[in-house]
């Protein structure tokens, strides 16, 4: 568990590779996790007195905390009779500082949308079936 955290930029390149890998393989999963980075940062772990005084101490920390984003694929083992191959687990992680959070998530959303290409595309045929409904739908859209 001595793996280095990647920089945000490096993380996005690796994440794109991970999704690409998944696409080439045609099956498999990509796991993404996010969590507060409560340790290895200044001021943490909190002093025991702080915890004893206020059990809700972590709901109002003095300074914003960074969050950690992890990404991994699923490990798979070769199995006779199937096209499964030995694939090592790929693990990525990056730490996002609070002031970069919003910018990070904009890129994150783009990376995920590009990567998750297997999901169902919007069904355009449905709207054409019922013209009245379609008209109503567009009217609502322009309003909103």
């Amino acid at each position: 568990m001595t793996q280095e955290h990647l920089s945000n930029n490096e993380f996005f390149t690796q994440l794109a590779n991970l999704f690409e890998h998944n696409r080439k393989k045609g099956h498999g999963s990509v796991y993404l996790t996010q969590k507060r980075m409560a340790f290895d940062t200044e001021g943490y772990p909190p002093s025991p007195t702080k915890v004893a005084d206020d059990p809700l101490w972590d709901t109002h920390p003095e300074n914003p905390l960074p969050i950690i984003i992890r990404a991994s694929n699923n490990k798979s083992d070769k199995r006779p009779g199937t096209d499964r191959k030995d694939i090592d687990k790929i693990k990525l992680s990056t730490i996002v500082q609070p002031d970069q959070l919003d910018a990070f998530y904009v890129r994150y959303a783009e990376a995920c949308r590009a990567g998750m290409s297997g999901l169902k595309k919007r069904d355009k045929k449905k709207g054409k079936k019922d013209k009245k409904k379609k008209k109503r739908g567009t009217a609502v859209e322009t309003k909103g």
Partner: protein
Amino acid sequence: MPFSRSDYSPISPAKSYLALRPAPIPSSRYPTTAIAMPYFKTSTEWYEQSSLLLKARPTTTRITSKYTVLKPTPSKIKKRQKYLDKQAAKLADPSRTSSPPPSSAQNPEEPTTTFALKTYDPESGTCLQYETTKAAEVGRLIGSLGRLGRHMAALPEVLEDLSAPAEGTGLATPRIEDDIKVGGMGEGKAGGTGGGGGGGKKKKKGKK
């Protein structure tokens, strides 16, 4: 916006995460109440409940998203094929002409692809889940992940409301502008409120 529990419906399964927290002993390793692990029908519901959970337990709660592509098993392929045959037979039957044509002739060997979100707090054992198969939802869901990320980072919520609509609506062009705004938000609140106020209103309209 102050945190008020009355905003949410009383029937929701996980309305009072703050109440779940054991007050005197902060280091309780085991869930003290019944474990809640619902699948939500809408992503907004998932988001609201997750944000409540994060407010109560910001340090231990984690959000896992899983994008998975599964090849169907041979039995599943058979089942799908059977269904397709049935549909074809129905169409051929002249007495049933009124029935609408099948919207999508699915290839029986097409893989099942899903995107699942899971908010889990190991201390209380709460697990909130949402699953989708639609590509259109991904942008919005990552947007909510970002807003929940602000809870995790303990950033103020006011700013979150302003930056949220731009990410949520998934418009392509204003995104870049917003990116810049977001970047500068750390220094001055005033600039953020001026730019984002209109966006907030827009989103409310769209929701209704």
